[in-house]
């Protein structure tokens, strides 16, 4: 879940990181200013300034006009429903700090640059001496001394070093406390009067950890938060509700298409591979979805029922890579039960069941009993997709 700028800044303030004075508006009529301001569209995408989502104004009339412009703009597929109006800050110097999770090192990594602003990715290539990196442990957090080492590696010293490293250390606390996958302040600025301030902030929270942050979960449910060009379909909304039934595994992330072959496919790369393979063999998917992490029988059952109940769905293909933590027998139970509860016949509804791996002997016994066509790991995902397309046209 990506937090909007004002939501992220509210968290920064709780951790004593200064941000410009500002307020969120939902209509221009309430706006009245007595000093220059910056109007910022609250949308969950990067590069907002370049897309025309950040405007400046000096008078109330000018600010209202520009706010109306922002409300009516389509910015990268989003139409803002909230505008953050902030005091214009006198910037003397800009910095960048970000924390992401390094999956290879299995630790968060800090990236700090003594130059902030847009196009930070290019700066890393052009002037690598201005950028430093360092990892820290999720158990001990980012100690002050380590934060200072990372910042001083870019040549910053004295009072600036102490001020910036203190903010970096607090950002690391936010990263850990909120189960973030990304925490970024860009730019962190030094104002004309010598104060450090976060002008923009980007926080992304691990979706699977939202259960630990009830307040953020409520924010995510707020339908008035953002308006995207393509809103969730009823089918996708129901699938998301199924995925939220319990914490075990994933059985959701559904995207609706208008084909006739329903897909229950393994998460991550395997689901994309299976989806592409079905398309490559001339199949017309009715949906994309992701299954993984050993979902409960209940979740698989409900998702299967939802997919096979769509009027345009004639058959479904259940395709996953070789599974280790997901159990084949539990998948088989869920799929068969979902089809039965939808009032259909498993043998006639499943085009192919290709989920090899843990507990496959038990799973194959279930599929055999109901006459469901299945195959093991000797059949590739691509071959299984071909069989699914072939069987679904019978």
């Amino acid at each position, binding site marked *: 879940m990506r937090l909007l700028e004002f939501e992220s800044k509210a968290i920064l303030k709780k951790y004593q990181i200064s941000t410009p004075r500002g307020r969120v508006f939902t209509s221009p009529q309430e706006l009245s200013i007595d000093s220059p301001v910056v109007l910022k569209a609250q949308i969950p995408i990067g590069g907002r300034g370049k897309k025309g989502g950040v405007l400046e104004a000096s008078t109330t009339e000018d600010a209202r006009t520009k706010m109306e412009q922002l409300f009516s703009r389509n910015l990268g597929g989003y139409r803002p429903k909230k505008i953050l109006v902030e005091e214009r800050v006198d910037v003397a110097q800009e910095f960048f700090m970000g924390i992401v999770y390094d999956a290879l090192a299995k630790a968060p990594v800090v990236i700090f640059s003594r130059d902030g602003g847009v196009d930070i990715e290019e700066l890393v290539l052009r002037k690598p001496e201005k950028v430093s990196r360092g990892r820290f442990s999720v158990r001990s957090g980012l100690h002050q001394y380590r934060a200072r080492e990372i910042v001083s590696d870019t040549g910053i010293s004295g009072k600036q070093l102490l001020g910036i490293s203190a903010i970096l250390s607090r950002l690391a606390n936010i990263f850990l406390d909120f189960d973030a996958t990304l925490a970024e302040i860009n730019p962190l600025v030094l104002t004309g009067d010598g104060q450090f301030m976060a002008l923009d902030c980007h926080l992304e929270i691990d979706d699977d950890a939202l259960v630990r942050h009830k307040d953020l979960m409520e924010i995510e449910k707020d339908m008035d938060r953002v308006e995207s060009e393509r809103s969730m379909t009823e089918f996708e909304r129901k699938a998301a509700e199924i995925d939220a039934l319990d914490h075990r595994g994933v059985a959701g992330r559904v995207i609706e298409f208008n084909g006739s072959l329903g897909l229950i496919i393994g998460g991550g790369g395997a689901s994309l591979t299976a989806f592409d393979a079905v398309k490559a063999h001339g199949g017309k998917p009715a949906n994309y979805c992701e299954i993984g992490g050993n979902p409960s*029988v209940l979740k698989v059952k409900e998702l299967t029922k939802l997919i096979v109940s769509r009027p345009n769905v004639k058959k479904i293909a259940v395709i996953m890579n070789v599974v280790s933590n997901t159990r084949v027998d539990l998948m088989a*139970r869920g799929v*068969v*039960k979902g089809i*039965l509860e939808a009032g259909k016949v498993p043998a006639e509804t499943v085009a192919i069941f290709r989920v090899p791996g843990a507990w496959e002997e038990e799973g194959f016994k*279930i599929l055999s009993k109901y006459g469901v066509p299945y195959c093991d790991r000797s059949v590739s995902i691509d071959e299984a997709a071909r069989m699914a397309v072939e069987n679904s046209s019978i």
Partner: protein
Amino acid sequence: MGEFIKVEINFSRCTGIKGCGGCVRVCPVNIFVENGSNPAVILENEDECTLCNLCVGACVHDAITIRRLYEE
């Protein structure tokens, strides 16, 4: 009721929650529940059974049987 799994408690052997209650404590998928002084099976959860057999091992009086209906 389970489509694939049937979990049965033999109450002529079961000594109840006070006497044992092991099944309710160990089941990782909450198939058992306290029903007064006895354990009971939540029928709609039966198919969540992972066949871990922890309940069978915890039951000192061998009162629990797990049947795989798809093998019958």
